[in-house]
Structure formats: structure tokens, C-alpha cells
């Protein structure tokens, strides 16, 4: 019988081939396999839910498409009364734990595997994203904490900005990873932007 099971990144085979460093204009890209994700759906009393979330995680519950984070746990507003919880180092059972702590106030569905989450950063990140999404990524409009649920290349994506580097994260359903990668490659090539592998992309190694 198997002793351990190894998670597989949706973009693993593509990221593996990237170089770890390149020139300044290159886009740094990594797949975040260290994040646990869940859809949090209010059961109606948003105020009580906000209080509970604030008490548990020290986070305000965003009522607009925004991402709030306490450095470890983040919530992204993705619809009326619906949030995507994105927790670092929370482990595969995060959703059931979150469901227990929000019991009665919110329904929670594990989406850790549903979304492939790409983190991209670098000077060209805005331009690359704007080629795909009809969203205004100008810093005066879309800054750290901004989030958008939209489409890129006919693929549903949720995008949020992490910092002013700028760094963005893109969540998409993992079955679309290959087609999304095709869009990413053709777009970067057309822009003359190179891709380099970001820090945490290496698959988890077990022995």
C-alpha cells in the first residue's frame, strides 16, 4: 500500500522547464500549491458573519471585489455574500476546520484543488494581464487588494493584486490549465516578455 501521496500542480510540467532567473523585464511565475482555498457563502446574517470572521482571523469581510489579508489568511470578495478564503499553510483539511468555526453563519466548500493558483510578478505583469482580461489594471484603479472575477481567453479567472511590485495571483479552474498556459505563452511571446520560475514552484518532494 502507498505510504504517501504527492499533490500535482496543474502547471507543473510547464513551470519545470522555466529557468529560475532571467532579465529584468521577465515575468516571474509560480504555482501556489501551499495555499488552501474554500468558497465561503453567507447564510444570510452578513453582520454576524463579519463579526465572527473578524474575531477568528482579524479580517474585515470585504463587501466589494477586494482581497483582505492578515498576512496568512486572506478573503477575496467574489460575489454578493460569497468569498474565496485563501489560507497559507492551512493544510488539506482547512475547509472543514473553517466550516466548523463559521458553523451556522456560512457554508464552506473546499476548493483547494479546484483552483490552480498562479502568482505572477514583475514590471510586465500588468501588461500581460491586460492583454487577456478586459479589466483596468492601471495602478490608479487596480492596486494591492483589488480583485476581479472575469475571463481570460474564454477561461473564467479570479485575479487579485498582492503588492506594488506588482504581484498578482490568478485563480482558475485547474482543468483549464493547459489552455491557459497556451494563452500565457502566446501573449508573452507577442509582447517579447520572457518567463522565469518563481520561488515556490518546485513540487513538494517526498521520499
Amino acid at each position, binding site marked *: 500500500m502507498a505510504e504517501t501521496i504527492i499533490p500535482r500542480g496543474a502547471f507543473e*510540467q510547464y513551470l519545470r522547464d522555466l529557468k529560475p532567473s532571467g532579465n529584468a523585464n521577465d515575468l516571474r511565475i509560480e504555482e501556489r500549491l501551499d495555499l488552501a482555498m474554500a468558497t465561503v457563502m453567507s447564510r444570510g446574517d452578513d453582520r454576524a458573519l463579519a463579526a465572527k470572521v473578524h474575531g477568528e482571523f482579524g479580517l474585515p469581510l470585504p463587501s466589494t471585489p477586494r482581497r483582505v489579508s492578515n498576512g496568512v489568511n486572506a478573503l477575496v470578495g467574489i460575489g454578493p455574500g460569497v468569498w474565496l478564503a485563501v489560507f497559507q499553510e492551512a493544510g488539506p483539511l482547512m475547509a472543514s476546520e473553517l466550516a466548523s468555526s463559521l458553523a451556522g453563519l456560512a457554508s464552506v466548500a473546499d*476548493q*483547494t484543488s*479546484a483552483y490552480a493558483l498562479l502568482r505572477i510578478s514583475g514590471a510586465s505583469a500588468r501588461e500581460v494581464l491586460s492583454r487577456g482580461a478586459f479589466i483596468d489594471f492601471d495602478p490608479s484603479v487596480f492596486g494591492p487588494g483589488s480583485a476581479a472575477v472575469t475571463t481570460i481567453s474564454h477561461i473564467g479567472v479570479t485575479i487579485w493584486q498582492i503588492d506594488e511590485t506588482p504581484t498578482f495571483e490568478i485563480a482558475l479552474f485547474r*482543468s483549464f490549465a493547459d489552455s491557459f498556459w497556451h494563452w500565457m505563452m502566446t501573449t508573452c511571446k507577442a509582447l517579447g516578455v520572457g518567463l522565469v520560475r518563481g520561488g515556490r514552484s518546485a513540487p513538494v518532494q517526498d521520499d
Partner: protein
Amino acid sequence: MSRSQSGGLINRDKPLNFVFDGKKLRGYEGDTLASALVANGIRVVGRSFKYHRPRGILTAGSEEPNALVTLRSGARSEPNTRATSVQLFEGLVAESQNRWPSLSFDLMSLNNLFSPMLTAGFYYKTFMWPASFWEKVYEPLIRRAAGLGKASTEPDPDIYDKAHAFCDVLVVGSGPAGLSAALAASQANARVMLVEDDWLLGGRLLSEKQEIDGAPASDWVRKTEGVLTAMPNVSILARTTVFGAYDGGSFGAVERISDHLAESKPGVPRQRLWKIRAKRVVLATGAIERPLLFGGNDLPGVMMASAARAYATRFAALPGKEIVIYTTTDSGWAAAKDLADCGANVAAIIDARASAPREAAHRVATKGTRVFENAVVVDALGGRHLRGLKVRSADGKMQNLAADVLAMSGGWNPAVGIGCNLGSRPVWSDSIHAFVLASPPTGMTLVGSAAGHFSLAEALEDGRSAGMAAAADSGFSAPPVGAPSCSEDATGSMPLWHVEGAKQKVFVDFQHDVTDSDIGLAAQEGFRSVEHLKRYTTLGMATDQGRLSQVNGQALLARHLGKTLAETGTILSRPPYLPVAIGVLAGHHRDEHFRPERRTASHDWAAENGAVFVDTGLWKRAQWFPKPSETDWLDSVTREAAAVRTSVGVCDVSTLGKIDIHGPDAGIFLDRLYINTFSTLAVGKARYGVMLREDGFVLDDGTTTRLADDHYFMTTTTANAVKIMQHVDYCRQVLWPELNVQAVSVTEQWAQFAVAGPNSRALLQKAFPNLDISNEAFPYMSATSFVWMGVPARIFRLSFSGELAYEVAVPARYGDALIRILMGEGHDLGVIAYGTEALGVLRIEKGHPAGNELSGQTTATDLGLGRMMSQKKDYVGRVLAFRPALTDPQRPSLVGLRPVDRSKRLRAGAHVLPLPGENRADNDLGYVTSVAFSPAMNSWIGLGLVSGGPGRIGERLRSYDPVRNGDTEIEICSPVFVDPEGVRVRG
């Protein structure tokens, strides 16, 4: 060669070689194809559409109706390219069009002789009967005669890109008004996008000798471009055409990235499609000069005055040796002055107005140019190109003038095209004798010539104030600055729509060969609306969309009807403003990337194991796994299906839709959604459910499991996954908002595998040794959630095959690991992987309805599921499901079918007919929905929808297949072929 020794915006140090109609020619960097042809003295560049008359270059802009060429060759050949818009490059190859066998000798020009037959509406009059001739004779004939170049039939070797942009102020056009607007808006710190069709900024200032701030206007253009380029809030897109305005302040544009190169550099797109969202838009698209009407006005050598001016000034290419100007405008005189300043011989200026501008007339007269006032050109003379003119003076005297170029200026039409896209209708202005857009769409301002303000001073001031206002509207303000001073620029004009006594054809629409008499005929035949005129005569329907011809044609119509142009009005323009290649609209979405594809977690494993994939919607699913020895798909599928019945098989079923239903009212919600009851389902149990549409027909089916009191896990068919998610959201948000229910798709979260066959329990016990899945602890339709090696996992005891079977689910990122574990652990048990075909065989053997039966035309009763319809509750579709037509016992309903001769093959889609009787629709009893070769029955079997269904069991009928010439005697049987008592599934 007619190239001047100096001047112009060409680089004489960079000669470029090109080929036109096989002739090797030379131009310079900075030329268009048209200017290089002018410089080389090439006069005839194409043949007209209908009469195949020789045609020369008429304009110097994208409105060109005549100089249409096929650019490049082979896969990159592009017909109907306007030579006036093509930037010359080294090695350019272009061919003229519409001529056979050659441009100078065109047999089709015989059409000229038959022109009485080819008048307005000749399609409708000449090619009427017999009707059978339309497709076979007339249409091919017309298409060959009236062709417009040939598209390449090879795949497009270029790539196309897409991009989006947002700005506060979009400025379309970079002439004096556009530059001025962009400058003003950007100085107020608004985000500005300046889009220019040409490769150079400057618009009319590139080809007019004007002064701004006491210096040549070109200095101001360069300086302004420098300022704008340096500003971080400005982006400039040259070689880009805004082709349409759309709702919500969005605009479409095409950037020609590589069209000025012989071919795109590797990886660099040829063109890019821009979707631009602007808070405000300033339309500085200029104006298009109007041709004048006289006999033979299409002779090569007759061109627009603005074009002659542009060729002489910008391109240093004099279009002729003896140039005559024919004008009704002051700008015609300005053109004459610029031409003379460039060294051209302006032999005469004919002004149709009663009196010419005094000062200008005096100036040219001293230089030997003859001036005619109150005179008109009646006919152009010459065979293949212009040699002279017949001019009628005010006193009615006719005289001949020698000329090899006639530069005409009949007024200016503001280029309002994009402004009309959203429905704003141009109105006639008596002050400028042209249509203007008096009420542009919200957020749009027209400036300069586009607004009918033709002088340079007005353009600069218009742009400045519109730029400031647009910035202010988007929340930006700046200290007001004045517009720069500039040279005087007279803009007087007089409309002239008609000339009496022309001996030759008077062309209104050059590209479609519509003459003034065609318009007269159309009016006489009752086509009184400008829209009818357009369609009947095809005026303005050519690739130039009537930019030159439309107003002249409408004026003639108005004249025939005794109306004013204000009364007859004009037409609206639709996007695209200029032709757009389909390739750029498709972008990267071509070939296999036409649409995105979805891969399951076991995709790579399946590919490694030789799977043949099938498209199921966007999903790639393993269809079967051929062994090296198997050459026929049926061998593989039969082996896989048989192995499931005798041992164990694993199939990826992750593509089924999965929906988490949460909340205190989840049970009640499902009771209303399904025909059967789910609120009574115990936690840890699954139940098969059927949903109806509101009209009573079956919508979808699947199993739904209760994982907690307030948590159900619904599955749908693969095909309907999205539709059912929408249905669930619609029901909970719109129909029953009072229910406390939450729902979300979790299709992508779980990799789910069917493990089916008598050895399935043994396999799962090896893989999950800590789990008790004995029949007692975990009977049929049980479900459990547990943690497996640190990750959540689920096992459901469900069976689609009728065998002892389970479905195992883990988070998708562990799906690859799970399939490898299952196949590894099952090795000794003889496990096989099976694909969607074997899945289909197994379900047909069990009589389970699937996509072919859930066709949207079947009721639950049709499918043998009528007993599931609860009598104790309401649900979607209940009322209409009991309509008489839906409860008719003679409705086709689900049965099994077998060929009486067991060696015969059944075909899906075949009709079921009685044994004796004709093969007629009114004898039809139903049809075969699904067939399979059943290894269990060792014959072909099928499912079908047959009138009176179960009542016919044992009856013999025919399966009649006219498509494949099949006529097979069949026996109606129970749809459940294997294990009808359901012993195995509970074993």
C-alpha cells in the same frame, strides 16, 4: 520618374525595390505603394468592378476606391488592399485586380459596350428567370465577372494578438485637432490614448504647407509628438485603425504591427485587436474630399486635389506634367499653391464658383496659370488616361484644355463614420454643404474637420477645448492654455452636384461603377429613400463604403425628387469603418486552440497508457485504451467492458458536474428540484434523482448524496454540468429566495473514479485498508467521507454498470496519485482502465438512460422512471408533466432491442417500423437511441424509444436505416439486459 530632388517625408538614402504586376520598380522609405506608383509614372492601377474600365489612383488615403491590389503572394496574399494605405517595404509584391488577361488589355472591358444592360438594378432585371439558373449559371457568372481579387486558400501563416486598454480620453486621429486635444487632455493629467491610422502623426499637416507658431507646421507636430511621448499618462498607437464604437464607451481597433514588413518576425504578431474602454472620446478623424461629377471623371489622371497635394508635398512625387485644378472650394486653391511650390506645372485652375478667391487668383495668374471663373469641366478626354478636358465657361462657350492630371475638389465630407455606429444620424448643414453629426453619442466630441470646422485655426482650438473638456468630465482640470497661432486657411466652398451636357459616363461611385444616370433611373423607378437607392444601385456598398460617392449620389437623388439633402438625409455607418481581417478577430483562438480544453486529473496517466481521447464538451475524456495487439476500437471496448463484468475496471468520472448544496433548507430545496424526495435521505446515503424542466420534460439526472444534515453533494451529467448549476442558482435566487440554501460548483475540486466489477471491493480494500467497506457496513448507495493520508477522500457505493461498484473521490491535485495507486494495487486482481465507450456499453446493458435518451423530448415515464414522481410534494415541472400529450400511453418509451439474427448489427438513429408495411413516416413507431456490442449478450443490443414501449416486449419489428441501407428484424425486450434482478450491484 516624377520624383522631386528634395522635400517630402521620404528617405532618399533608403531606396526600396518592389514589384507591381511583374514590373520591377523603386521607391523610398516613407512611400506608400500608391506614392511609389505615382513617382514611377504608373497611371492605370486597376479595372473597375462592372465595366472593367481602366482606373488610376484617386486619393491618398484609406477612402481609396480604385487602387485596390492583391498584396503579397501565396498564403500571405491579401486581396483588395488599398495601395494608398500600404507602407512600402523592400521586396513588396503587388498585383492589380479585376483584369483578364492583363491590366492594359482587359477582355471584360467589353462590358462597357453592353452597359445599357448593366444599369441600376440589372441583377434584378436581367437574371430573373428561369429560377433554376440562379445558382448554377447567373451567380457564378456574375461572381467571375465582378470579382474583387482572390483570397488565399492556404492557412494564414501569421499570428494575431489581442489586447485591452482603458483611458480617460481616447483621441481618434492625430491631425492638428487630435494632437491639440491629446495635448490639452494629457496636460490635465488625464489618461490619454491617441490612435492614428497612419504610421506618422500629423494628419493633414503631413501634406499641407502650413505654419503654426510662426514655423512650419511639421515642427509643431514633431514637438507635440515629443511632449506626448514623454508623458507617462499618454499612450500613442500609430498604424492603428479605430474601426467601431460599441456600447458603454468601448471601441474596437486594429493595430498593424507587421504589415509594413515583408513578413512578421518570428513570434511577432501581424496585427493586434484592441478593445478600448474610454470615459470620453474625441473624434478627430478629419474630412474626406468630395469628387466632382463630369463626363469621364473616372479616367486615370483624374484625382482628388488633396491627393495630388499629398503626393507632391509629403511624397515629393508629382502626379503629372500638366496639372489642372478643378475646384468649388478654397482648399483647391491651397492645393494649387502647394503643388506649384513643389515645382509642379499647374496649367490652369477652374473654379465653378462665380468668383475665385481674389488674392490667390491674382497670385497664380502672375505665374502663368490660367484661371477660369464660373466655369465647369464637362468631359474628360483621353483613352487609357487623361489627355485633356472640355471646359464650359460662364458664357456657355466650350473649349479644350490639355491636361494629364485633373485635381478636383468638390467640398469636404466630415468623416463621422464611427460617430454613427451607435445610431446618431448625420444632419445636413447648409453652411458647410455636408452632413455633420449634430448629436453625437454621449461622451463623444467631434473636433476640427470631423466637426465641419475645416480651418487649421478651428482645428487647433477645437482640439484644445475638447481635450480640456474631456479631461474635466473625467475629473481632471488644468490651467487653461491658448491654442497656438497658425497660418490663414480659407474654407469657402460651393456645392456642385450636376453637370449638363456630358458626353461620357459620369461616375458617382467609382468602385461599383454607379453613374449619375443609374441614380436617375433608380429615382424614376420609385426608389426614393437613400437606403433603397443604396441597395438598388449598390451605391456605397463597395469596400470603400461610399466614402467618396455617398453624398454625391444622395444629392442627385434629392435633385431628381425635387427635395433638399436635408430632407432626403443620409445613411448610417456600421462597424467596421475599414475592412478587418477575420484572423485578427480570432486572435490566438485558432486550430486546436479554437476554444479552451479541459483535462481531468488522470489525463497524463491516460495519455501515458495510450488512451484515445474524445471531446465531451470542452473536456478531453479517455474513450478507450487500446492494447498494442488491438487494431479495431471495438476490440478494445469489448475487452474493457467484459473485464468490468468479470474482474474490475477503473474509469475517470470526474467530468460529471458536482454541486455542493448547503444550508438548513437544502433538503426542501432538493425536494422541489427533483421529482423524488431527498429531505428524507439519511446522512451517508446516496439517491438517484431526476429533474424536470418547467415544461415537464426531463432536464437531467444523477445521484445526490447527503453528507451532513445541511450538506448535500449533487452530481449531474457531464453535458449539463453548467446548465444545472445555473438552474440551481436560478431556483434558489429567483424562485425560492426564502429558502436558506447555498450552492457552489465543486466539479473541479474532486477527481472521481468509478471502480466497478466483482473485484472492486477487493481492490478498494487494498487501497484503503483502514476502511470497512463490507456489504454489511457499507451497502449499496452508501457514502462516506474520511481522511486518507492526510487529505479528504470520499467513497460512494454507486453503480452505473450494474456490477458491484464504487466511486472514489480525492481532491483533484491528488487524482494523478490515486489513479496510479488504484492501477498498481489492482494489478494482481486484473484491473483494467476503461474509457467512455465501455462505460456506454455497460450502461446500455443495464438500460440506464443517458444523453441520447435524455434528449429534452422525453418524460420521466418515457424513460421508465414515472414511479419516481412523488405524489406528496410539488416540484419543478410537475404540473406540465401531466399534460395529456405527455401522459399519452402511446408515447414512445424506453425499451431494449435485439436483432433477431444475433449476428446482425444495430445502428443508432434507425427508425422502428412494423414488420409488414411501407417505409413511411406515418408507420414510424420510434427510433433506436443507443446501440452497443454487448460482450455479456454476445450480440449487438440497443435501447430505443418505441410507441407503447413496454407493452411491446416480445414483439418483432424492424429497425429501418435508410441512411446506411439497413433493414433489420428486431425483437423488443426489457431494457435491462444484464442482471435484471440487481443481485450483483448489491453483492
